[in-house]
């Protein structure tokens, strides 16, 4: 029973607890916090069942559940996970208890609402990752916005309203475009197969056709807004805002700076992955020809993101802004590896999504711990605090090194595979991207030096108290996977093999179908090297 509905249980447990909390009577704050932490821990515990029960050798989706919802419209409750969504679900369920524990003393106002929003956010995030029905995906995708908006807008810093609105509008603008594109695809599917269907893939064992089987015409075959490039562009804009890709990134630093620590961690750790996940889950398999065609654009923006994000990060004065801009650079790597369209790059890319969630999440946690003590994140306020806070300093340097991509820590594995894959696709993009590793060292170590080293000159820093037991526990928990992935990434990478190959196979089939049916194959920019790269990738 539990086995058959494990995925739904993991998805909806947090929301269920949140609703119960909402309806419950008065209770001390500690109860709200405790119940929320317990619920998130239980969710994580259940998701371990997913991890263990997942069969890495099987292609396709596992833990599948499907039930009619609005069957007349082709809308089903349809969930399932493959390796990619498994990793991201694990990341979400893992980060949530950490975040709740980390913000134990941080949040003082309306604690009940806070935990309500956090838990419902968790359901929305997991729901987005496991959704196999487009409608359902869209609902969860939009649902995520609401709690995040309130978390920034209510529990945030001084300019929280500006940041919340900016976050909201940026994302909303992209989402609306995606909605239009979704409807077009829905319509195309209906046109081709005569059924109203929003299932992403067909239920295993049935011959039904699903959205991913839709043949989206390439340029020149259909009405302009029904062709792959336009639809891809609409999706890319929606996902690109979330990633965020330059120049759609400016909401991110503001949102991070104003969000409370927990908001920043979830934002960086999970929400940004929605964008990259969307690309790999929808944009690539649905519009392979356009994706290949747009690869130079994506590569260019990714490399600009890597270098630009790093350089701008270097000159920030606020610790959170440094980390926020570093996310722009890191997500640039993720995009680069994804559009390398080979196994090496794509596996590195998905792994790097997890890595970024861990490393950057950990950095935001650490920044938050310092903020709780000094109520400032201005780098210039600090200096020499390795002396009063040695444990904090040690952990900060460790996490920094993971973010820089030091071997034996998680970041290296992802970055290396990404760059390796990208190099096979295009050395001209991969080489400047590789230079990002130099800049990463520059901006992070410069910050570390200004915060931790030198004499303690500011008297307020002299009496800083080192991390307490709760904070240590939080950090140890997050350092464990950082080391694990760095030293022995195999359990993660092997769980990705089948699903990554499946994405590449779909791209390849789509490319072949497109070029076979279309008289204008050359016009879509499918050149011999790209074709060779794809052939290589699908091997």
């Amino acid at each position, binding site marked *: 029973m539990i086995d058959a509905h494990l995925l739904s249980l993991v998805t909806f447990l947090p929301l269920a607890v949140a609703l119960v909390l909402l309806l419950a009577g008065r209770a001390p704050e500690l109860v709200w916090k405790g119940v929320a932490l317990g619920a998130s821990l239980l969710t994580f515990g259940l998701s371990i069942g997913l991890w263990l029960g997942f069969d890495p050798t099987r292609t396709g989706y596992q833990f599948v559940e499907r039930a009619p919802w609005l069957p007349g419209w082709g809308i089903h409750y349809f969930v399932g996970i493959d390796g990619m969504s498994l990793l991201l679900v694990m990341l979400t369920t893992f980060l949530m208890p950490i975040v709740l524990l980390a913000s134990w003393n941080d949040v003082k106002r309306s604690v009940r609402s806070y935990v309500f929003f956090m838990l419902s956010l968790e359901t929305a995030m997991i729901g987005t990752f496991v959704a196999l029905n487009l409608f359902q995906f869209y609902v969860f995708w939009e649902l995520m916005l609401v709690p995040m908006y309130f978390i920034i807008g209510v529990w945030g810093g001084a300019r929280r309203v500006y940041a919340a609105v900016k976050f909201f509008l940026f994302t909303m603008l992209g989402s609306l475009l995606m909605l239009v594109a979704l*409807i077009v695809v829905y319509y195309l599917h209906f046109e081709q197969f005569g059924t109203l269907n929003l299932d992403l893939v067909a239920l295993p064992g049935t011959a039904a056709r699903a959205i991913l089987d839709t043949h989206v015409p390439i340029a020149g075959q259909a009405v302009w807004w029904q062709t792959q490039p336009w639809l891809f562009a609409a999706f890319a804009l929606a996902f690109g805002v979330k990633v965020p890709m330059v120049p759609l990134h*400016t909401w991110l630093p503001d949102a991070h700076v104003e969000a409370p620590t927990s908001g920043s961690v979830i934002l960086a750790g999970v929400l940004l992955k929605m964008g990259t996940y969307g690309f790999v889950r929808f944009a690539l398999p649905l519009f392979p020809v356009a994706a290949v065609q747009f690869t130079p654009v994506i590569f260019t923006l990714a490399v600009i993101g890597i270098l630009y994000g790093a350089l701008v990060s270097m000159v920030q004065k606020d610790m959170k802004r440094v980390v926020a801009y570093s996310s722009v650079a890191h997500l640039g790597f993720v995009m680069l590896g994804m559009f390398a369209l080979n196994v090496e790059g794509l*596996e590195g890319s998905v792994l790097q999504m997890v890595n970024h969630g861990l490393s950057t999440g950990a950095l935001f946690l650490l920044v938050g711990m310092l903020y709780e003590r000094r109520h400032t994140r201005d780098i210039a306020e600090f200096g020499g605090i390795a*002396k009063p806070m040695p444990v904090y300093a040690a952990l900060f340097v460790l996490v920094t090194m993971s973010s820089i991509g030091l071997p034996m820590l998680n970041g290296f594995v992802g970055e290396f595979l990404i760059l390796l894959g990208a190099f096979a696709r295009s050395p001209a993009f991969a080489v400047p991207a590789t*230079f990002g590793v130099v800049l990463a*060292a520059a901006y992070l170590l410069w910050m570390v030096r200004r915060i931790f*080293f030198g004499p303690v000159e500011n008297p307020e820093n002299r009496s800083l108290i080192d991390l307490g037991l709760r904070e240590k526990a939080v950090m140890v928990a997050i350092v464990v996977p950082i080391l694990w992935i760095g030293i022995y990434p195999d359990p993660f990478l092997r769980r990705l093999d089948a699903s990554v190959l499946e994405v590449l196979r779909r791209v390849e089939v789509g490319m072949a179908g497109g070029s076979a049916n279309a008289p204008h194959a050359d016009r879509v920019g499918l050149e011999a090297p790209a074709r060779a790269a794809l052939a290589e990738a699908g091997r």
Partner: protein
Amino acid sequence: MVDGAIASPLLRWIPLLPLAAAAIHGVMLGLLRRTLTRGGVIALSCGAVIASFVLSCVVLGQLVVLPEGQRLLIDSLYTWVGAGRFSAEASFQLDPLSAVMILVVTGVGSLIHVYSIGYMDDDHRDDKGFQRFFCYLNLFTFSMLVLVLGDNLLLLFLGWEGVGLCSYLLIGFWYADRWNAYCGMKAFIVNRIGDFAFLVGIFLVFWTLAGAGHPTLAFRDIQAAFPAIGEKTVTLPDWLGFLPGAPSWRLATLIGLCLFVGACGKSAQLPLYVWLPDAMAGPTPVSALIHAATMVTAGVYMVCRLSFLYAAAPGASAVIAWTGALTALFAATIAITQTDIKKVLAYSTVSQLGYMFLGAGCGGYTAAMFHLGTHAFFKALLFLGSGAVILAMHHEQDTSQMGGLWRKLRFTHWLFLVGVLAISGFPFFSGFFSKDEILVTAYAAKQIPGHRALYAIGLGTAAITAFYMFRLHFRTFYGMPRASREVMAHAHDPDNTVMVPLWALAFLSIVGGIVGLPQVYGDMLGVKDSNSLANFLGPVLGHAAHEVPHARELGLAGFAVGAFALGLAVAWLLYLRNPELPVRLGQALSGAYRLLWNKYYVDELYDAAIVRPLVALSDLVLYRGVDAGLIDGVGVNGPARAVVGFASRGLKYVQTGLAQSYLFLMLLGAIAVVGWMVR
């Protein structure tokens, strides 16, 4: 597993023992804030490294009993990183080349660990500093051992970055001092520039081999598959048309050069040497172990490890040889004017590393490894000797404040002199043989353009080396004491934990040359195959490259002795015979003196040409201009203001609150969807 390779599960413990020690220290200090007793720290850290040394000797024993062509031990643990065709094992291999390296690393490492007990005892700047120091030192030993034992390029890179991290941590060990922290950061970032090229080199190796059907990064497989790609060429883009040989380059050359840029960073060669002199901010045992004996030689090891590639890439080899020679000369000239005892040694390290690259570039891989070994002995000796001086002088490092110390530090003085003689090439000390091997190799390297000029540079640098080393020795130990009476009264030789490693290293500095005794001397002594190092390394590195008649070789050795004598004589003249002369010389040649004293202004140049413009670009153009100005100012807030302006006039009743308007929008959207579907 390769045929003939024997599994030896002992291998893994050589790096893992120091790692375990470092991990215990790390958890205790970084998390629990508990310390071991001093004895506990010593037992754990020194015990781990000495155990590694013993294990190294054991596996060396296992190795040498094997027949010459099959000396290879393997210890495979698991697949570290694997995706698609790419796979890198966590696997160690021991061949003669690795064996030499692990002996140097664990041998010299053990001595320096013991020395550190005495040296760091004196340190009271930070609580728990003693244990923290040994934690980093153990971590370093682990990384360095992985670097030399790893059986593939990626594992080498792991060690490569690991030693870089430890270098960063140890240079900035006394972090309360801003300068130290700055130097640590500088070292890491400059090294990363090299690592960037190194990574590109790894990508090139992998994809080139994958293209030929051998996707691998394991050294043995690369070597086996190398003939398949040896002749492949790559077409350079037009804007690189000015390069020699353009537009068609051998891939081997390109790969070789990329990896060598990495070596330039790690091994402090032009133009990336700038971090090493500043690395002297770290405690002296660190300077000895990391920044002289082991880590900085990683680049040389890498070139030797891939000698089959470099042997097939004459272009890359020529660049290596010339970079090495020019670095040797360049650094030696800077060393002439420096007065900080550790700075002089640092520049001499840069210079000696240049010699190693000169040798390797000229095809003398064995000679480079030989010099690597002897240099580890005498430079560790010199650094540890300088550490003894610094302890005695209460952390004064400027030789302007020394002089006349030989009366107070009798043993230190003699031991330091041994180091000076060895590095200067005093006949039959270790450095004499190894430096000579390199010079003879350069002399005979017909395949390298300008090999005679390389020889001349090497010989000239040898004279300069003798000069600045004796200058250092004379200024430190002879002449009138310049330190305060009080300091001089308390100056004395340090105690045994410090002195015993010095004695051991001095012994090795004198006799260490025997392992690589050139055949020309072997013949005189009636020893067949006297160069046992070359014979041992031969199966890995190829046998001696040069064919120089014995008479000519002796003649060249004569020149080298002449260079030594010249340097010594000038130093004696200037610093003992006529101590006012250097001052007057400095005034007469003030331009040249200032240039050297300021190290050719290279740091200032980099700062003005790269660092400042980059920061200004990032801040003024990218951040304020593009991010805040263009995207946010024009793209986001501009329209937003327009909308708000419109809304405040026309739509203020709709704007009741964002959550509501959001729901409203959702509703509108939903209606639109439904409308579309049922139309």
